[in-house]
């Protein structure tokens, strides 16, 4: 009986991994370097395995929350290591390394990508993050609500405002693509 249960759990886990591994890997690569992303996805899947019985039907937003927490832990540990190294070698902070954080760089070198990245960087962090989750992770309001820990209604409002603010930023920077129309949502932009 126990063997059957284990096999069943393993099958469910494999189904879950097939479903979420790729989106999670992309989520992490958008927010950290490749090596950290690789470590963190291992941690994330392990937590999913341990908490398999809690995974909801719509598993991806739940798994993204787990990944975000694991990434946060990894980044905190990295900062502690950096601080410790800084104290040990007792010199000025090392010169800025090449930016290995893809979230801060563009997918390619096109002017359009650069313009969008610059506009995103000019937004408040919460606004930029909800836009990334919407556009890159392709989440809609109910899923955004799960990831952000807010109501679906609040997620929809926050997303609407973030879009308006992004449009404002793109217009300000003379969006080279120029295919975003300024709409009624801009009234509450950059409150």
């Amino acid at each position: 009986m126990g063997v059957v249960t284990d096999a069943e759990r393993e099958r469910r886990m494999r189904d879950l991994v097939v479903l979420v591994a790729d989106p999670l890997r992309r989520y992490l690569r958008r927010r950290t370097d490749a090596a950290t992303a690789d470590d963190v996805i291992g941690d994330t899947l392990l937590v999913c395995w341990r908490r398999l019985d809690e995974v909801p039907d719509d598993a991806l937003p739940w798994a993204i929350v787990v990944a975000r927490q694991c990434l946060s832990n990894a980044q905190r540990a990295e900062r502690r290591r950096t601080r410790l190294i800084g104290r040990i070698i007792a010199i000025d902070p090392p010169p800025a390394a090449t930016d290995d954080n893809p979230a801060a760089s563009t997918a390619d070198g096109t002017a359009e990508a650069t313009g969008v990245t610059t506009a995103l960087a000019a937004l408040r962090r919460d606004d930029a993050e909800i836009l990334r989750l919407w556009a890159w992770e392709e989440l809609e309001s109910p899923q955004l609500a799960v990831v952000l820990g807010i109501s679906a209604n609040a997620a929809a409002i926050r997303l609407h405002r973030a879009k308006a603010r992004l449009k404002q930023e793109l217009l300000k920077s003379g969006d080279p693509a120029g295919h975003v129309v300024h709409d009624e949502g801009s009234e509450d932009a950059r409150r």
Partner: protein
Amino acid sequence: MHDDDRALRDQLRVADPARALPPVSSMWLDQRMEQIMTDQSPTPITTVGAEAPRRGFHRWVPVVGVAAGLAVAVAVVAPLVLGGPEPTVEALQPPMGGGLASGSCLVLEPATVAAQEQAFAATVLQVQADTVLLEVTERFVGDVADRVEVAQVDAVTSDFSGVPFVVGQSYLVGALDGTITGCGVTGPDNAELRAVYDAAFPG
């Protein structure tokens, strides 16, 4: 979805750093599954070691053993089952005299709070000896662990701008470079300080 939204989404996707990332291979999935299945068991088995030679057998030993086993199992499994991953704990340094030789502080401005690397609301869970354990309830800026550990403010040697933490009370906390900021930035979560934090972190 409106055409306008679709256009915006497409535009954002151009800047997606993972756009060119190839999908995971079946080999990658197999390796991950193997790691998961071999590294961790969903039902961890905890055995109490019995390396020391027995000097006698008491009837209460099995009872204590079972109780200890249950306690360990609850300690290990409960956080996973009930509260998700075990809460992360981050240590912060207590305020360092406010940075003012005079011991006085400037009027607190939202800009001062907005300049904090970490800002959060937290409730004091416990104060043991000189160590305070705070449960983070709200994050305004920066990555903050689930719980924060900090040495209790020393009312004798501090600049008096720091407020000693009291169990059960809620606080608004700002920190720079791993050190809690005094001079009014960190204090009890009251309407006045909350207004400054709200102004510092609108939305």
